[in-house]
């Protein structure tokens, strides 16, 4: 399909009518643009339902999940271990393979995604469903999530 190969010197001036239109800038700090329903943000883990099987730490492509001992969850049923996943957000690539492979479905991903810090150590924390869910605001300061 051949197109005519000439243009006009004055056609760009018609683009100046954008001056009248309202800019479609999302003024982020003032306007909160909520992420979509399925957004893959930080993890949350229901420590009761989780059986500490370690599937998530094996499937993680970036070796980001380490199983951390939780002595208070030493249930007696077969197959459950007193271990809970600890996620290092200096490695995680937010691919949600761990959520897919979790047998009990306790490990989920929530819509919070902001964590800015000048200390590297604050990027490693244990997802706990009781902490993350209470804050509806999407821009959550997760500094307080660190294990005290």
């Amino acid at each position, binding site marked *: 399909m051949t197109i005519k190969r000439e243009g006009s010197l004055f056609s760009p001036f018609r683009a100046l009518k954008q001056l009248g239109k309202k800019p479609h800038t999302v003024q982020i700090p003032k306007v909160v643009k909520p992420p979509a329903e399925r957004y893959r943000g930080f993890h949350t883990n229901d420590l009761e339902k989780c059986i500490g099987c370690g599937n998530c730490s094996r499937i993680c492509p970036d070796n980001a999940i380490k199983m951390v001992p939780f002595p208070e969850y030493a249930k007696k049923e077969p197959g459950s271990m007193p271990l809970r996943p600890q996620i290092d957000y200096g490695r995680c690539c937010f691919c949600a393979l761990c959520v897919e492979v979790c047998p009990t479905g306790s490990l989920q991903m929530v819509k919070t995604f902001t964590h800015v810090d000048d200390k*590297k150590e604050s990027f490693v924390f244990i997802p706990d469903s009781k902490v993350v869910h209470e804050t509806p605001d999407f821009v959550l300061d997760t500094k307080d999530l660190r294990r005290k």
Partner: protein
Amino acid sequence: MVDDEKIVSEDMGVQVEKNENMEMRSFGTVKRWATKRSLWMVHYCTGCGGIELAPLMTSRYDMERFGMHPMVTPRQSDVLLITGYVNIKTLKRIIRTYEQMPDPKYVIAFGSCPINGGPYWDSYATINHLDKYIPIDLYIAGCMPRPQSIVRAFEDLMDMIQDGTADGYMRYKKYYEPYKANQEKIFRKWW
């Protein structure tokens, strides 16, 4: 706060006087406010995170509302954004760019790769901990952080500049020898 006593360390050989940091000099608060409100970033897309800078710089999220503007050469800029993983070849250029920037200069590391290696933790070509080689003021979580997180990081950096805790460039002078030793271990010939 930055420690007030005179940082004179003979073994370092680099004398960092007290008035080196900006608070003590005249009009300190005004200068810090001006630096805060007009941070110019080096136009250098070091890794994959650079693609999230594009929506920030253009009409949808418009970073220029904070006075931030991508400048071409390190001579004219204040902030160096390390967007994502750092290859060894890129690391040499990052260090050179960082050293060309005039003081006060800041570094923000995007995403999980500069923190602990990210998905390339076992790759022979990328380094895992960027703060072994250059001082970093802020880290942002996210495998490619969203524009909202990046703007949140800019706000945090502005607060840190205002109260003087963003002292990456002073730490670079203070620990100049260990940084240089680490850099020498990576590159066989410097040029």
